[in-house]
């Protein structure tokens, strides 16, 4: 709605003025069923986080899955791609469109198997046998440039371990088993991995995000493969126009 200045000499009455603003008044002050039927207000009732309607960056980007389970044999030199979000040409983000992109990443590490066997059967050194949590995986987050190159975001790099649930010796109610041992053998980890980071689009632009799991040379024994299972992954990009204040 364009606002036309009222000029001196303009004859006006209440009805004429109200009619000019009626549609906008309704739009701003009224919440209609269509807006709340999904549990959300219309954009005009909320702060605009990603720009104005109709602009190329007026939306967030996401890629997720809650049903598909991924498995991948992870040799020391290869990597398991948890998820990859690629933007269309029209949606690609550079510094002329947004000056910050908030990246939200979540996924679940379902389990790790060593050379096709249950984790508890790992041929670890003797004094590591009861220490299941020594397995180490590196998680890297990369952004995709306009040339298709993958660039690691260093501050978003993480290392994770499977946690305490996987056990070599199941605990008995009458004996003290290994630390945090399950009552039954349990090869599942269900480790939640969450990463947040802020990107500043520069000359390279942001054409997508990729999340990978890599084997770490630390914590592995021998060169045999590891099977990695992940599920419930999500990548969300929120481009914003904001004043960036850094140390």
């Amino acid at each position, binding site marked *: 709605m364009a606002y036309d200045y009222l000029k001196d000499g303009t004859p006006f009455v209440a009805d004429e003025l109200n009619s000019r603003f009626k549609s906008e008044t309704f739009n701003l002050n009224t919440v209609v069923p269509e807006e709340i039927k999904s549990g959300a207000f219309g954009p005009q009732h909320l702060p605009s986080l990603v720009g104005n309607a109709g602009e190329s960056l007026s939306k967030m980007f996401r890629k997720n899955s809650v049903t598909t389970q991924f498995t991948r044999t992870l040799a020391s030199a290869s990597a398991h791609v948890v998820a990859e979000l690629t933007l269309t040409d029209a949606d690609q983000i550079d510094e002329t469109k947004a000056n910050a992109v908030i990246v939200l990443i979540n996924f679940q590490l379902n389990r790790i198997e060593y050379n096709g066997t249950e984790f508890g059967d790992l041929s670890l050194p003797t004094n590591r046998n009861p220490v299941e949590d020594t397995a180490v995986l590196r998680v890297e987050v990369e952004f995709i440039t306009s040339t298709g190159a993958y660039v690691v975001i260093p501050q978003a790099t993480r290392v994770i371990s499977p946690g*305490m649930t996987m056990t070599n010796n199941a605990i008995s109610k009458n004996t003290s*088993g290994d630390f945090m041992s399950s009552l039954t053998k349990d090869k599942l980890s269900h480790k939640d991995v969450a990463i947040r980071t802020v990107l500043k689009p520069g000359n390279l632009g942001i054409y997508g995000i990729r999340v990978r799991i890599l084997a770490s040379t630390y914590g592995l024994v021998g060169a045999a493969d590891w099977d990695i299972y992940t599920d419930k992954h999500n990548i969300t990009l929120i481009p914003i126009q904001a004043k960036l204040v850094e140390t």
Partner: protein
Amino acid sequence: MAWKYPKRPITGSYVIDIDPINQNFLAVAEESTGYLNEHNLKGPGLNLTTGEQQEVLAATDLMVTRTSGQLVDDIGFRLHRTMKTNANPSDDSLATPTGWTELRASDFYVTKAVDGLSMTRTFVGGMVWICASFNLHNHQAYDRGSTSVLGEKGFGYNLAIEVDGAIVPESLLGTGDVTQEFFGNEDFAAAGGGHVNGNIQARPRGGGGVNGARNAIVLDAVMYLAPGEHTIRVAVQSIRNSALGFGAGYTSKTYISTAELFALEMLR
């Protein structure tokens, strides 16, 4: 749109004048239609010597605010960020990790005033989304694949965002209730009840909260901050010092490697 519109509904008894009507509707109408105004155009600013408004000499003085560094200070969103820029990503075969932050055991939350884990900034006031993302380690920092892994057990953390020295409850990751945690006392642990051959057994000290030797942690909260300077930090509690040593020479501490902390001011 945060204000009720129109501010003064026009009724039959309303004294109508040109200027109040324009003032009443102009800002709302412009904003709702995405018009550019002084809030999304950069000006040349004030003369630093005389304090007078400077002239606009070039189009770049009025550069539209999308480009980094061109935004005005009172834009709707301000994003504060701090991060570790030199943290080793913690799984390399280095003898010494670089850029890690060591957190010693305490009965309460521990904080560190370092990049990535702490920021002191001046906020305009209003709703702020605070988010911290970091890598929490509870294993011996210098154990890099050797067979000496007796200290390599991680369990029992509460983690939260701290604002001006106060823990933000809604940001808590863990349990936040130590009365619900199981822990044996120190004497119990020292007598062997907590470990056998260096490996923690079924009844260790500590427990509960966030577990694991290496964790990718995210904490966040949306909260109202009063105008002024505030200090935001990541707070880590090792529940009942559960990670503090369980054998001579195997003192396990808490470390944070990669870390990023940001606060998005959502102004209106």
